[in-house]
């Protein structure tokens, strides 16, 4: 997984460059329609997207070259399980927040992040996260008068 350092092709970096070129293409394609409605006018809303997509294309190509030559700094081995725990925590929160509710969604985000940082006491973490979320919810909604998304749990408050 550790690449670069001037020793042959660095595939992940080539992939980043390809990704940038793909984004450049999307920006260009999405802005083409704007050009149609504003003709050849240079001042139109399409000018900046075209410029930006040109930049992305240039830097993407240079990144592909850098990846080919392997000139990016070397990377340490990553603990992918931890990254997956945080990603999963956020994904579960998105799924739960409007059904089970804000408090359980935040409690699970708290616990899964704690797990990513090496905590092994899941029940304690869920409890702390839930308490924190309940306090934050009441403070925001009752005291500051801001609206937060709510689900089943908040209907009990």
């Amino acid at each position: 997984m550790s690449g670069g350092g001037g020793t042959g092709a660095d595939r992940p970096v080539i992939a980043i460059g390809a990704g940038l070129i793909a984004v450049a293409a999307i920006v260009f394609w999405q802005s083409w329609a704007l050009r149609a409605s504003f003709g050849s006018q240079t001042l139109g809303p399409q000018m900046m997207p075209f410029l930006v997509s040109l930049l992305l294309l240039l830097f993407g190509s240079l990144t592909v070259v850098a990846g080919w030559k392997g000139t990016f700094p070397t990377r340490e081995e990553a603990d992918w399980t931890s990254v997956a725990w945080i990603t999963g925590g956020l994904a579960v929160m998105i799924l739960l927040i409007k059904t089970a509710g804000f408090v359980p969604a935040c409690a699970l985000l708290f616990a899964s992040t704690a797990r990513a940082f090496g905590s092994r006491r899941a029940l304690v973490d869920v409890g702390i996260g839930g308490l924190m979320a309940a306090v934050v919810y009441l403070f925001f909604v009752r005291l500051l008068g801001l609206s937060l998304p709510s689900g089943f749990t908040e209907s009990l408050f």
Partner: protein
Amino acid sequence: METLSLLGNGLAIAVQPMNLLFALVGVILGTAVGVLPGIGPAMTVALLLPITFKMDPAGSLIMFAGIYYGGMYGGSTTSILLNTPGESSSIVTALEGNRMARAGRGGAALATAAIGSFVAGTIATALLTIFAPFLAEVAIAFGPEDYFALMLVAFITVSATFGSSRLRGLTSLAIGLTLGLVGIDKLTGQARLSFGVPDLLDGLEVTTVAVAMFAVGEAMAVASQKGGADDGKVEPIRGSLWMTKEDWKRSWLPWLRGTAFGFPIGALPAGGAEVPTFLSYATEKRLSKHPEEFGHGAIEGVAGPEAANNASAAGTLVPLLTLGIPTSATAAIMLAGFQQYNLQPGPLLFVTSADVVWGLIASLFIANTMLIVLNLPLVGLWVRLLSIPRPWLYGGILVFATVGVLAAKGSLVELTLVLVLGLLAFAMRRFDYPIAPVVVGMILGPMAETQLRRALQISNGDATVLLTSPISATLLVVAVVALFGPLLWARLGWRMKSDED
């Protein structure tokens, strides 16, 4: 004289009880996020944007500035006692500061950092008071083409001049510019890069992007380090917080030199607080009468960089207030803070909202005084924050961060964006891409576009207007030098070295 009376008016606004309270809340929050690793002033201000939306502009901006200054103070405590910088601007402080703490001189290190921050912050704020009105007067003559050229300079210096790689810095900037394109075009009402999603028509929320880039990306990056997360050992504060006569003698010149690096580098669009701290450290090492102590806890190596990072925070406010140009991530988010009150920083701000500007500047002096009290006698309280277990600290940061996002816009689209952009930020950190250019590009990009289109509209589409205006032409030359200068210097340096061989 006129400046003094304006500052006097500002002081009268700053000492109103509500504004004093805002300043106090700001410096306390700022110190806390400065002490805590994983959360910084940029994200804190971004999280407060939705909460302060309905509050008084002067009070909120005073609080934001207090957070900015406080973050610079708090970062040093973590660097000295934990050897893990709380902020990127305190990386250098850890070099000597932590050695001092291990050698039983932690008290003196904390004292020289706090007093140096106070001295530098006060001098730099005084310089801000003197230079800002002057610069605002000059900037009134700027046309849209000049502003565009100035923003170009800011883009290049923030992303390319001082980073570890020009290609990665500029790529980060391009990503930021792309994010800034999303939403309805202000001049024609056309939707851009919205992919038919109604939530995207208003553009991306600053809070959402900041949370994804800083909180989520950082948490993932730290969690992914194998075994590296649990090596932090907090040194107890040993040694008196009173500096000895020798300490004072060795500290005062580095404080002044640090200020001399920090203020101008912060004020010129030159990429934030890290650069002057590195320059200050190198200078002190060269000038010190005790070079053998460097690496083993030299007090100059703490005094200089800590003064430099505080002075740079004040310096950053000069272009922000007088030109509307942010030169760091925190300044960019503060700019968004001004805009949420329909205040446009720039020369006219000193005319149309003199009360807000001068109240803000005067409050900086007060904030600095509050900060030295908070950070020196009360340092023991802040150290306790460092004993929060890492899993709960980051869990709490993510919960608060997502709550801030939901308070700005309570839709699942925002949360999905946090996840997607958070993974992007993690990948960027992993491959050593800088984050600040993303934030600056996203916030400043649409403004640069407006200025460019306005300039071209006035000139009937003639792009040479950028070269015929003397101010714009000069700035474009500066931009080119900033882009290719480092390459040239590196080549010259390489040649000089090979001559010696």
